[in-house]
């Protein structure tokens, strides 16, 4: 084993260990999932049951994100394992595939690949550190995009630098396909593709037609564009009503949510204060920037980090998970730059060479055994650590209709109330202006949300009446009427919500004004209210990031 293949080996080792650690962790914490991912998964479950997004249930995610979420739900139906567990393990698999694709691109004997081979451990380390730091955000849209798009960046680096082996077309096509899936998760991500291609274009040096064809229009780019086109066309042909609903009122609501800032967030402590993430990003970015000029790969990582910063600002709410892209990519850029700085230092180079030689001499023929052993050790130790760190008692998932077990502490706020007042597959309404505490609870406990999956349009519609133009209000009036009519119908239907939790204050007032509270008063009995400020709730569950003022929820249970 020479020094370069030693780097590949180290990268593989890191990737496998990371995957084993994550798999071990999530095989014990079978119900652990962030709110947004849980919400999409819940939509995926409904799609797997035959529902149509924006028509049978209302959410503001892109249709591709929702349809992709139905994959773990479909698998869950087949093997009766909780969709959250399947989802988490699928993301672990994605992380492994993504890293292996990145590592595979460094394989080869060409001396020009030396640079990439030297950097591979840095890339894998960056991914590992980012995923572990953001473990609570595992499965978020940004994490998925990060993992799906990363091999594409490496592949583009190879193509533009003319290092791409012509025979590896299938792998390049797969990388392009994965990148397209990532881009479709959120329309904003498409800007990343534009930015990357813009940068790649000017990295060619002189832009001649021959160079453009040979280096620029490569398999991964064509595959990516083709997948984007094909999937969009497929969606348009198969479910045109879904597309028209998404591009109509849902798009408009998303646009207005961006336009009308939530003024409550101007106050201290009414939104998460993740300045530390921004500071880290700036420092990583600035330190990596000097290398960006001479290394296209570092340049692309810096670019994606800057895109991640824009995405963080664009999100408006600035939750931790929205900062994943800027941190992960800037960290990788920094590690790439650091590896170059280390390479420039002769003593460090000699030292790393000696370590490589020492390890190589001992591992040469036992690599496979060693790797397998290490992966098992990682998996077991991670599982043991997960069991030891788990809080609250364990319970069987059989009551939800699945194999496996979960921990009380992994459940979200208000789990006790929801468990007591409803059973698996019951419809439960938990409405506030944000995604938590409705999610991940409803997905974890296999409850079905109402037509309105969570209260995403409530604030915007309310603000619209105060600040919107007459045209804007008129445009969304039909949507608003349909929304409340559907909720009323659902409350009076044969499959009504067994339990209704409504956030006190504005959501409560809104439901009262629209006549839904009257129906609740008629058919439901109030039970003990719940509050995210309750000491027991705080002690029994993982904390979650919250916007605005934390207030209590009224709880009403359906008359028997």
């Amino acid at each position, binding site marked *: 084993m020479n020094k370069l293949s030693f780097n590949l080996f180290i990268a593989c080792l890191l990737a496998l260990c990371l995957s084993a650690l994550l798999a071990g962790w999530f095989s014990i914490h079978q119900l652990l999932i962030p709110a947004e991912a849980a919400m999409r998964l819940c939509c995926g479950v409904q799609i797997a049951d035959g529902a149509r997004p924006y028509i049978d249930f209302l959410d503001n995610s892109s249709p591709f994100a929702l349809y992709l979420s139905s994959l773990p739900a479909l698998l869950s139906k087949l093997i009766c394992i909780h969709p959250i567990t399947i989802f988490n393990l699928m993301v672990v698999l994605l992380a492994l595939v993504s890293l292996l694709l990145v590592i595979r691109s460094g394989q080869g004997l060409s001396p020009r690949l030396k640079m990439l081979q030297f950097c591979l451990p840095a890339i894998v380390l960056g991914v590992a550190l980012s995923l572990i730091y953001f473990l609570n955000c595992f499965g978020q849209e940004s994490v998925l995009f990060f993992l799906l798009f990363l091999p594409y960046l490496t592949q583009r680096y190879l193509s533009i630098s003319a290092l791409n082996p012509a025979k590896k077309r299938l792998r390049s096509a797969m990388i392009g396909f994965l990148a397209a899936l990532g881009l479709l998760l959120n329309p904003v991500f498409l800007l990343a593709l534009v*930015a990357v291609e*813009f*940068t790649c*274009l*000017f*990295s060619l040096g*002189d*832009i*001649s037609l021959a160079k453009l064809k040979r280096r620029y229009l490569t398999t991964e780019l064509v595959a990516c564009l083709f997948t984007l086109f094909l999937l969009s066309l497929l969606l348009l042909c198969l479910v045109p009503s879904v597309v028209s609903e998404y591009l109509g009122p849902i798009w408009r609501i998303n646009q207005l949510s961006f*336009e009308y*800032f*939530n003024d409550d*967030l*101007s*106050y*201290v*402590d*009414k*939104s*998460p*204060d*993740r*300045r530390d993430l*921004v*500071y880290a990003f*700036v420092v990583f*970015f*600035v*330190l990596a*920037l*000097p*290398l*960006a*000029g*001479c290394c*296209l790969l570092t*340049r692309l990582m*810096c*670019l994606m980090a*800057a*895109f991640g*910063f*824009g995405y*963080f*600002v*664009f*999100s*408006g*709410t*600035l939750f931790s998970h929205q900062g994943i892209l800027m941190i992960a990519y800037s960290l990788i850029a920094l590690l790439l*730059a650091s590896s*170059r*700085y280390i390479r*420039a230092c*002769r003593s460090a180079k000699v030292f790393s060479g000696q370590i490589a030689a020492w390890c190589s001499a001992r591992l040469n023929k036992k690599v496979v055994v060693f790797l397998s052993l290490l992966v098992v050790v990682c998996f077991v130790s991670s599982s043991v650590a997960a069991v030891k760190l788990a809080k609250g008692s364990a319970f069987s998932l059989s009551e939800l209709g699945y194999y496996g077990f979960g921990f009380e502490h992994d459940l979200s706020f208000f789990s006790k109330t929801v468990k007591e007042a409803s059973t698996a597959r019951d419809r439960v309404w938990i409405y506030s202006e944000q995604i938590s505490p409705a999610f991940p609870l409803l997905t974890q406990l296999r409850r079905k949300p109402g037509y309105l999956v969570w209260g995403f349009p409530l604030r915007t519609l309310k603000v619209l009446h105060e600040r919107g133009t007459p045209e804007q209000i008129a445009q969304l009036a039909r949507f608003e009427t349909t929304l409340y009519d559907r909720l009323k119908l659902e409350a009076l239907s044969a499959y009504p919500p067994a339990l209704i939790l409504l956030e006190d204050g504005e959501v409560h007032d809104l439901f009262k004004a629209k006549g839904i509270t009257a129906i609740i008063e008629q058919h439901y009995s109030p039970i003990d209210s719940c509050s995210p400020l309750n000491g027991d709730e705080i002690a029994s569950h993982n904390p979650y990031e919250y*916007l605005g003022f934390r207030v209590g929820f009224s709880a009403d249970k359906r008359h028997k």
Partner: protein
Amino acid sequence: MLVSVLLHPLRIGWDPALHLQCAQLIVAGGLPYVDMFDVNPPLIWYLDMLPALLSSAGNIPVTLAFNLFMCLLLLLSSSLCAYVVVSKLSCDSQNLLVNLGLIFGLLYFNFFLTFDFGQREQIFVLLYFPFLFLRFARYQGAAITSGEAVLIGTLASIGICLKHYFLFNAICVELFLILGASREAPRGASRKEWWRNLLVPENFAALACALLYLAHFFFLPQAVKDNYFGFLVPAFAAGYQFWDTSLASSLAAPDKRGVFFLLSLAALLALSFSHRYALLSCCAAFAFAGVVPYLLQFKGWAYQDIPAFAGAVIVICGGLAALLVAIIEGVIRSKKSIEKQSAIFTTSCLCLLVFIAGFSLVNAREEYEKIKGEPNFDLSTIGYSGDSPYSDIDSPFATIILAHAKPHDRVIFIGNAVAPGFPPTTQLRVKPGSRHLHCCILSVLQYIKDVREVTPENSRLLSFKDRIVKEYAEDIEKNKPVLIFVQNGPAAEYLAPYNFNQYLKQYKKIDDVAGYTAYELQVKS
């Protein structure tokens, strides 16, 4: 910019107006932190003494003198940058075009500042950028004379010392240059090169100037030191969080997020051309570094992100120039036509300059037409000649001051912010009636009382509140200001326990305006 400044002789923002007022008081023999209370470090006041002196020497509005001073800074900054670019950096015409784009950005961002024109952040950018260019040239191996280095280093040091936060930008740029150089330097030589590039006249000049500024504090009168280091600095360190906002409001509010989107765009352009024009990346490092001081201050005030905004505009302008170069190169690709290419780049530079000049003229004419249609304020009312658009001073407070006070009369604003006392006090040539130019300090003390733990140090700081109210009373008694404006909200609450009305016996309430109660002196001395 000059046309705009001359058309708006009274236009100024609240903070620059406050600093200018302090400078005027110093010119008149006042002592900082004794005859005027404000927490800002005094360097900006010393700097503003130049326009204050110019105003009194030429009998022109001090606001006009200040804006002319800013124009001079613009000219100085861009001339120095152009000098460095042309003589040290632009080895070919492509580089020249991109570097001119950067200088255009350095000038262009100033047009967007309106009421933040003249903030310390803007002065820092203007004074620092020649230094950034020079440091870059130094790392490129350009020959730099000691005179050039000392001049540019001193100016940069003045810029950095205006606010300690600016040091972060300078450190980031230096780190960028060091890391960039260590990558390029041949092995073994890098450490020697590193020291050779660091121990240079511009750095010595900057350091010496900063040390001189720090040393001057030791020679200030004891009363100044006691008030500043014994009270104002510790009080603001403990209670400045009174005005803190949230991260969401700082970055994502509709009126602020544009700057950060611009930063992302700047990064795209800088990175796309970084392999050819490293200076773009260096400017991008400066721009992104500007986000950290903005968030460290955590007030969400738009002017605090001026370095980030300016950096973004500079990089975008430079990046667009680089894009233009790439397009031109793409059109004329033949290697034989290098001379032709060079000629085209030179022509492009000239076209760019002509375009900028034409654009400026059109803008100036538009502004002139706009001003002509507006009601004017006759400057003879305040003892100057000429006139100014009334919209520049238009506020209910200005109306009251103009109706009840003459130039040089004294007026007090007791409010927990710099506005609305400033800019009207500076614009309308009235004098502050109290050493407390505003009562921000009372909010600071209230925050310490409400939020901080009770410690001997905090109790000591809180004991200053009685002294401040007493000083207000003394100043009213001694200076007999013709007008006193008391904020109905926080300030009135802070003063309520002291029965502040007892000091206003000679005053009659004349109006209730924009959250303030206006009192007029009944027996004029």
